């Protein structure tokens, strides 16, 4: 039973041999017939071309030419699709600039009939030729494979894959086969995956009744009783082939000496105590490390996510062999906040670490969703979505740069990335509402990872609502004030509106390369914009009235603040403010991603904001953002976000106390801020 399809292609090749030999013998031909390419390898699929090389010793005379034509006609009449070429042995041993197809087809050659001495000439000359041109041929093979992979998006996950040309297709097996003829390197055994692919291609050809390599939905349904699972199997198979081909290509890649490669080598400066970087790939310094120190895997992923590097083949193999893998929630958040987190996620997905960490991932691994619009399998769609956000940074295209700006404003991009990672994980389920199903699964995952409640709320909100803005975009009147109010109410906070806008942007963009049309970009932006306008307008005007907060203390604190206060602060912030408010003046100074935040709560008075600003300026700080709120009891809450360009606070930690002290005395009116008097002006930058 084993290798059924491979023996089938062999059987077909043998019966074609019989036809070719019989036809050849009928004509007295002054040429030597040689099987090349797939036919040379004895791998003939139903309806595939039969590649023949006819070796001659010089130009053919008219009679011989007529004989060759008659011979070929006979083969066509016998139902073979012959693709022939006529060359001398010398012509076969020359590099044809821009077209190495002949050379490559000759890598698999087999004598059929005719003057054997002519074939001997070829078998003597060809290896010498290969030896002299090895570098050029290998470079060409690699270049051609890379170009082909790039042409098909570098992914195996096409819903209607081409079993020959796409990454993970037959051509990749050929590339490995050819490279092995040119260079020696190790590959894993591929017999089983080859057999699987052969079986699919044979059946596809029989189904299409021609040499068709595109596995259309129609064929998927005809060739299997359970197309979804059958295709999953296909993708897993293709993934192995693609992985093996990529490794083979990397192993054979010539060491370039160009300026570019020197530049790439500069990245080796990134090497650390754990890792070395060579030719854009990360290697473990101590290969055995993963076995006795599993946390090295996490460090490796963080490293990849920070620098956007690829992982060396050997390291990848070791990751694959890890029996288990886990990260803590804070580690995962750190990873997902990194500029190249998708590179790290791809390493996790390919090495199987992702499934070991989040077993639920296997639900969408290679999962096909069959509709007209989706280009990729669900897992790939997910990664492409996050990648779409990564690529937003610095996008200057006029419609996208607004989203790029939004992406820089949000506080917790890692939560957005995590929500995207799981937003379609419910699609593995047959039930209808995948957003709901995904959020149930995400809830379970976050419980297991012990994510704090606040993070959970944000992530679940994003997953559950991930289709909401798309629906508003097409079904609601954006000029109607009611739509804006509905958006602001259902989003709750400005931050959530921004997060969900970006989530929608990423999700739609990853459906297929043309799904995010300028129309949708503009419409999505308008939805976001009217929501933001509603927040800033309404929230400033609305006051928190007879509050429904549970305890009287919170109510007393909140009453009279604009609604905007609730929408721009998290419950944790609010609780902290309340604590500060217990003994006014409450002053807090915190470090915040490279900037500082000063929070002051004190009875309101005239010029309060101005004098605190003055106090901060006197230290040489740069105020980036300031907000002021006052509640019904006359308590003022002022917050300042400021930069410290002279690094005063960083270099002299005790200065923080002096800042707090100065601010306190300013609030209490004990001092005029030093900056406001002539004598104190010295510290201004």
């Amino acid at each position, binding site marked *: 039973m084993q290798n059924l399809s491979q023996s089938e292609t062999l059987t077909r090749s043998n019966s074609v041999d019989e036809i070719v030999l019989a036809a050849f013998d009928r004509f007295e031909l002054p040429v030597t017939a040689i099987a090349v390419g797939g036919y040379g390898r004895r791998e003939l699929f139903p309806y595939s071309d039969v590649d023949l090389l006819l070796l001659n010793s010089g130009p053919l005379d008219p009679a011989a030419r007529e004989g060759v034509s008659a011979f070929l006609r006979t083969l066509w009449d016998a139902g073979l699709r012959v693709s022939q070429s006529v060359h001398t042995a010398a012509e076969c041993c020359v590099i044809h600039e821009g077209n190495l197809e002949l050379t490559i087809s000759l890598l698999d050659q087999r004598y059929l009939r005719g003057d054997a001495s002519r074939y001997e000439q070829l078998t003597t000359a060809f290896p010498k030729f290969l030896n002299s041109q090895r570098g050029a041929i290998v470079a060409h093979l690699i270049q051609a494979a890379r170009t082909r992979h790039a042409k098909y998006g570098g992914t195996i996950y096409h819903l209607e894959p081409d079993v020959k040309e796409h990454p993970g297709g037959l051509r990749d097996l050929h590339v490995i086969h050819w490279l092995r003829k040119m260079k020696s390197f190790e590959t894993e055994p591929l017999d089983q995956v080859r057999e699987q692919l052969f079986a699919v291609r044979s059946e596809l050809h029989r189904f299409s009744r021609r040499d068709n390599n595109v596995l259309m939905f129609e064929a998927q349904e005809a060739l299997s009783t359970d197309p979804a699972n059958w295709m999953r199997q296909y993708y897993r198979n293709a993934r192995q082939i693609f992985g093996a081909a990529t490794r083979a290509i990397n192993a054979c890649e010539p060491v370039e000496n160009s300026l570019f490669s020197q530049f790439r080598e500069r990245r080796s400066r990134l090497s650390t105590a754990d890792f070395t970087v060579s030719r854009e790939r990360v290697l473990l310094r101590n290969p055995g490390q993963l076995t006795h120190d599993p946390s090295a895997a996490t460090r490796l992923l963080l490293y990849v996510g920070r620098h956007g590097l690829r992982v060396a083949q050997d390291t990848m193999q070791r990751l694959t062999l890890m029996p288990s893998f886990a990260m803590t929630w804070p580690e995962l958040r750190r990873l997902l906040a990194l500029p190249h987190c998708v590179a790290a996620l791809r390493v996790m997905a390919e090495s199987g670490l992702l499934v070991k960490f989040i077993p639920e991932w296997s639900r969408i691994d290679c999962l096909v969703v069959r509709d007209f619009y989706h280009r990729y399998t669900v897992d790939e769609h997910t990664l492409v979505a996050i990648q779409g956000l990564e690529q937003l940074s610095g996008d200057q295209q*006029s419609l996208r*740069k*607004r989203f790029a*700006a939004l992406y820089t*404003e949000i506080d917790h991009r890692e939560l957005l990335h995590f929500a995207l990672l799981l937003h379609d994980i419910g699609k593995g389920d047959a039930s209808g509402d995948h957003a709901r199903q995904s959020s149930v699964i995400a809830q379970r995952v976050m419980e297991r990872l012990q994510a704090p409640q606040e993070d959970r709320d944000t992530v679940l909100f994003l997953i559950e609502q991930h289709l909401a803005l798309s629906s508003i*975009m*097409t*079904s*609601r*009147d*954006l*000029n109607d004030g009611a739509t804006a109010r509905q958006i602001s109410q259902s989003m709750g906070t400005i931050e959530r509106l921004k997060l969900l806008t970006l989530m929608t942007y990423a999700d739609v963009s990853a459906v297929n390369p043309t799904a995010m*049309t*300028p*129309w*949708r970009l*503009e*419409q999505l932006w*308008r939805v976001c*914009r009217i929501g933001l306008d509603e927040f800033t307008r309404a929230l400033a005007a609305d006051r928190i009235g007879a509050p429904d907060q549970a305890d009287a203390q919170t109510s007393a604190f909140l009453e009279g603040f604009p609604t905007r206060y609730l929408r721009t602060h998290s419950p944790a912030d609010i609780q902290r403010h309340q604590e500060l408010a217990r003994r006014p003046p409450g002053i807090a100074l915190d470090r915040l991603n490279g900037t500082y935040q000063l929070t002051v709560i004190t009875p309101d008075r005239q010029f309060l904001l101005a004098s605190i600003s003055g106090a901060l300026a006197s230290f040489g700080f740069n105020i980036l953002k300031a907000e002021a709120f006052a509640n019904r009891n006359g308590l003022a809450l002022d917050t300042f976000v400021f930069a410290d360009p002279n690094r005063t606070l960083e270099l002299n930690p005790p200065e923080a106390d002096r800042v707090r002290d100065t601010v306190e005395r300013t609030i209490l009116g004990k001092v005029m801020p030093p900056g406001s008097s002539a004598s104190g002006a010295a510290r201004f930058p």
Partner: protein
Amino acid sequence: MKKIEAIIQPHKLEEVKEALKAIGIDGMTITEVRGHGRQKGHKEIYRGMEYHVDMLPKVKLEMVVPDARAEQVIQTLVQSARTGKIGDGKVFVYDVADAVRIRNDDRGEGAL
């Protein structure tokens, strides 16, 4: 035969389609388009960056109907697409010389 082309607000699409269906018009071509009418564009400032918004998203419907039905279709379109505000869109009507059904060579109104 008349070709009727309507540019409408995106959110009105479902309502317009339903209204046309109710009077027996099922076949139409729908395109997501961007453009502007008399208001031209406007400048928008978001976080200190200036964006020029000159192309507003709209939906274009196109259909060809027998002469006798044209007026009814136009009325239905206008009524169902109207909100009364700026930006409701426009309807254009053209004469159509002929129509051919590619499958079987039907000509004229028979091909609609």
